[in-house]
């Protein structure tokens, strides 16, 4: 029986729960120094003076590094790309301040406590300059010279003649939607332990992609890549903010270089607001035009997001309006609002996350204007092919997902909007969930041992979603072993380089390479037996041909080899693509929610949700379901409470903690979170038949919630989060 699809528990589950998993910050090296940043308290200007005298007098404080103390960036650094380097603006290379929270000094001490005390004792004075509040800045065109983010998708798109089509539309809805900046706040903050041995650098780092860290650290110091080793056995959540390489990683390595001692740096929760990225505030103007039958005839979508002054980070929220629905006339435009802030980044869920919030709301407004059920409205403009290229999708079973989700939720027999349950008014809403597939070049090695166990090796990092678990299932499936006989060796750049663990790209990318590697091992084993590959099967630790069967142990020991190895690689031109050429790939689904609103008290609560998805083949029912539940919870936070407010007169995040920035807790999440997958194998997405799972789960949720709120009390909320002040009625 196949073990693919089985709900195998996560192999790292036990050590994560009992606390024995060792994260980057849990590593220690003899002679290490603890680093704590002193960061700018003003948003713009220059550092005038840094007085370190008091700090250096404290017991345990060894050194306070300021700008001139750090090595300059090597010429190779000019060749690095943004992204995967998050920003080229590296603090402490000059006295310039580009945002509040930017590091201006590094206190190094024998203990963390001493370093913290030292950081508090450093006295900095500034020459402030007028600062630009990004949220108040006028939207500007994207500048392709400012970093490489603009190359990741289209800033402008035009198809047909949307203006003309709009004038002839029977129904037009037009609205502006906004969502605030949100910080990811993974449970484990970013942390790095850097240590030099001659010209070789080793770092333990909390990241989502090891080779990017290796390449950028090498360029920073002008080293060969092989001289830099990155180790990241576990990462305690990332949600995107550990995806790219952030300046603190370079600064820690620089400090270790200067001090000739290992340096350990663990960002504080407050540092996480100033030194790594965030999902930016996004405002969106949408116009939808439909004919009298509800079919979309025109869509215009203009998006602007806040960004820093050095690079244009672009939150591609226009993606949904050119990929969710069939429409002949579409225009998209991305703009940016630049100001003194830390550069934003791709955070769960990028592009389609913000985009689906606005488009999913606008579609609901259109459905009400036309007088159609929102599912029927969507079916009227069902995109059979990719609206951008006109190519057929790799596979799309969204119709089936609508039917499955609507059946399980009871959508067609839902209570009328506003139905009372005590003081609660009940409302239901739905929206599309979708995320484009990304594939990254990846390599893997699989080893089959004489004792009948197997191992796979890859620099892959498991951020907790479960790739190490499902990859053991894949190897087990191909080599006929139970998954617990397959061991993962991951999280080290000394292993074959893997693509990143973000964008839900791991399973399709590294999984494809893994499939190849395991298949190569199997074929080698067949050859050792002298059996044609086409005639064998692997089962229960044995190789089987017709009625003949030999154990792996027996074959290897007779051949006198201790192990068989196979390499696999997913090779992709220009490193990343959006699926097999000619087959645009995208995961699809729909989310249905029921909320309760108490308008007298301004309360909004989730009562139940159903998500139904077309994502390709499910390799592990448990980890896939967990990803979707996590995404819905994440989406509930986006919908109902999360916001990082930019304090306009101070030019910084108003609250840099988890006390004044509210996230959902268990009590907010009802047990009735129902997850269903359409039975699907995507033959055009790779040998495993998978597309992408986790990232898309957080798309659509905010729109479904806003639509449900409208259903319940007739108030259309177009600015997230949907807090009591927007709901309360006399």
């Amino acid at each position, binding site marked *: 029986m196949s073990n693919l699809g089985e709900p195998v528990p996560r192999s790292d589950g036990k050590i994560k729960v009992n606390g024995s998993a060792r994260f980057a910050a849990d590593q220690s090296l003899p002679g290490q120094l603890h680093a704590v940043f002193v960061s700018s308290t003003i948003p713009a200007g220059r550092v005038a003076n840094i007085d370190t005298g008091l700090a250096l007098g404290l017991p345990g404080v060894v050194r306070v590094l300021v700008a001139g103390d750090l090595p300059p960036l090597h010429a190779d650094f000019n060749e690095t790309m943004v992204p995967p380097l998050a920003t080229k603006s590296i603090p402490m290379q000059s006295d310039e301040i580009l945002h509040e929270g930017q590091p201006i000094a590094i206190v190094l001490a024998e203990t963390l406590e001493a370093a913290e005390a030292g950081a508090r004792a450093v006295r900095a004075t500034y020459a402030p300059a007028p600062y630009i509040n990004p949220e108040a800045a006028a939207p500007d065109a994207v500048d392709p010279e400012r970093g490489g983010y603009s190359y990741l998708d289209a800033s402008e798109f035009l198809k047909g003649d949307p203006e003309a089509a709009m004038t002839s539309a029977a129904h037009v809805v037009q609205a502006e939607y906004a969502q605030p900046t949100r910080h990811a706040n993974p449970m484990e903050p970013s942390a790095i332990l850097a240590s030099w041995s001659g010209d070789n650098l080793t770092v333990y780092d909390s990241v989502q992609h090891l080779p990017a860290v290796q390449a950028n650290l090498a360029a920073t110091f002008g080293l060969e890549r092989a001289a830099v080793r990155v180790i990241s056995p576990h990462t305690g959540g990332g949600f995107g903010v550990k995806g790219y390489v952030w300046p603190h990683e370079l600064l820690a390595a620089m400090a270790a270089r200067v001090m000739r001692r290992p340096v350990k740096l663990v960002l504080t929760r407050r540092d996480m607001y100033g030194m790594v990225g965030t999902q930016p505030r996004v405002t969106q103007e949408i116009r939808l035009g439909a004919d009298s039958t509800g079919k979309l005839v025109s869509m215009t979508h203009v998006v602007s997001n806040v960004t820093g002054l050095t690079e244009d980070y672009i939150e591609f929220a226009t993606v949904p309006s050119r990929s969710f629905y069939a429409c002949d006339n579409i225009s998209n435009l991305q703009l940016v609002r630049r100001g003194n802030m830390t550069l934003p980044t791709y955070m769960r869920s990028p592009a389609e996350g913000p985009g689906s919030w606005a488009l999913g709301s606008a579609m609901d407004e259109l459905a009400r204007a036309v007088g159609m059920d929102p599912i029927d409205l969507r079916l009227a403009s069902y995109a059979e092919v990719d609206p951008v290229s006109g190519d057929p999708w790799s596979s799309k079973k969204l119709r089936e997902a609508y039917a499955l989700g609507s059946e399980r939720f009871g959508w067609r027999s839902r209570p009328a909007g506003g139905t009372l349950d005590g003081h609660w008014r009940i409302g239901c809403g739905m929206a599309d969930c979708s995320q484009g597939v990304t594939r990254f070049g990846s390599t893997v090695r699989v080893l089959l041992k004489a004792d009948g166990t197997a191992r796979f090796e890859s620099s892959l990092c498991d951020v907790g979603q479960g790739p190490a678990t499902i990859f053991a299932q894949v190897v087990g499936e191909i080599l006929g072993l139970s998954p617990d006989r397959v061991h993962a060796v991951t999280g080290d750049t000394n292993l074959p380089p893997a693509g990143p663990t973000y964008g839900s790209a791991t399973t399709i990318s590294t999984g494809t390479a893994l499939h190849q590697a395991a298949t190569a091992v199997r074929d080698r084993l067949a050859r050792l037996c002298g059996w044609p590959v086409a005639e064998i099967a692997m089962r229960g630790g044995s190789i089987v041909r017709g009625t003949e069967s030999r154990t792996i142990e027996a074959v290897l020991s007779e051949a006198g080899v201790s192990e068989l190895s196979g390499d696999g690689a997913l090779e992709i031109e220009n490193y990343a693509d959006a699926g097999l050429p000619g087959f645009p790939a995208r995961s699809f689904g729909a989310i249905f929610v029921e909320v309760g609103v108490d308008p007298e*008290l*301004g309360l909004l609560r989730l009562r139940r949700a159903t998500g139904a998805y077309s994502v390709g083949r499910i390799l592990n029912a448990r980890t896939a379901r967990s990803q979707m539940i996590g995404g819905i919870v994440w989406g509930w936070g986006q919908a109902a409470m999360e916001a990082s407010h930019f304090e306009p007169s101070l030019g910084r995040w108003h609250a840099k*903690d988890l006390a004044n920035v509210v996230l959902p807790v268990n009590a907010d999440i009802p047990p009735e979170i129902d997850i269903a997958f359409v039975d699907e194998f995507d033959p055009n997405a790779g040998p495993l038949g998978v597309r992408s799972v986790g990232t898309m789960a957080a798309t659509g949720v905010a729109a479904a919630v806003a639509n449900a709120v409208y259903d319940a009390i007739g108030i259309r909320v177009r600015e997230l989060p949907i807090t009591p002040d927007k709901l309360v009625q006399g």
Partner: protein
Amino acid sequence: MRNFSYAQATSRADAIALLQQPETMSIAGGTELLNWKRIGIVEPARVVDITGIPDMEGVEALPNGGVRIGALTKLNDVAQHALIRDAYPVFSQAILKAASAQIRNLATIGGNPLQRVRCAYFRAEEPTPCNKRVAGSGCSAVAGIHDKHAIFGWTEDCVAVHPADPPVALAALDAAYVIENAKGVRRVPVQDIHVMPSENPAWHNILGNGDLITAIEIGAAATTSAYLKIRERESFEYATVSAAVALDLDGDVIRRARIALGSVAMRPWRLNATEQQLVGQRIGSSEAVAAVDAGFVDARPLSSNAYKITIARNATLRAIELAARAA
């Protein structure tokens, strides 16, 4: 964090003596004090651990029908005590809606009213104008971000609210703190321990060096009572607004109502006008609604928190309904 010396007090007198030294603070559960030290809100040179003092923990019935609660009793132990659960549901509910189970197992009921404001300017690690951090430095919130701030009793010098839940219930129950110092013992009505910004915007409470809260005393049972806490998430979050109501009913006619609101001012806010007008009114009547409205005549919104007035008014009505249902 500044280094400090640590001593364990062995008796109330010992604690009171130790606390009179300069730059000295007591520590009970430590759930607030440690946060303040990490942020840099306080930097005491000496910390006196009062948790070892005998006779300051536990709940006991008083001869006159009320109860006395030792200041060192943990929040969860208070809320789950039969004397509290059965006789003062409003108080038990207010405690159980505070913080998280873990914090309630550590935090003491005596330390709870001494927690400080949650205003994000006050809790910032960066230097920020805030009269409660640095007296005379100004108030960033009054013209800044203040959507969760006060609707009663604020001044331009501070618009923060006191965030604690249990004292709101205690205020509705006319409870008192028993405070001991070198000069003797005094009893202070629960809401009077807090300092309003008109009195002194830099202060939180009236406790001075060497003042020890030893107990809380509550009068006769109030079984017809309820606590309603409004917040955007269901648990582990401070109130946007809360309402504590204790009723004395004759059928559905109100003989006496005691109502306190939380997170609307720098102290639990008794709705005196409402309480007076409710006497003799029926639960759910239009007169009762008018009586509640009377309590909000002197409510004053800031530029972005008028919604709190509406919620507070509706929460009051709802809490009256909940309390009446408990009868």
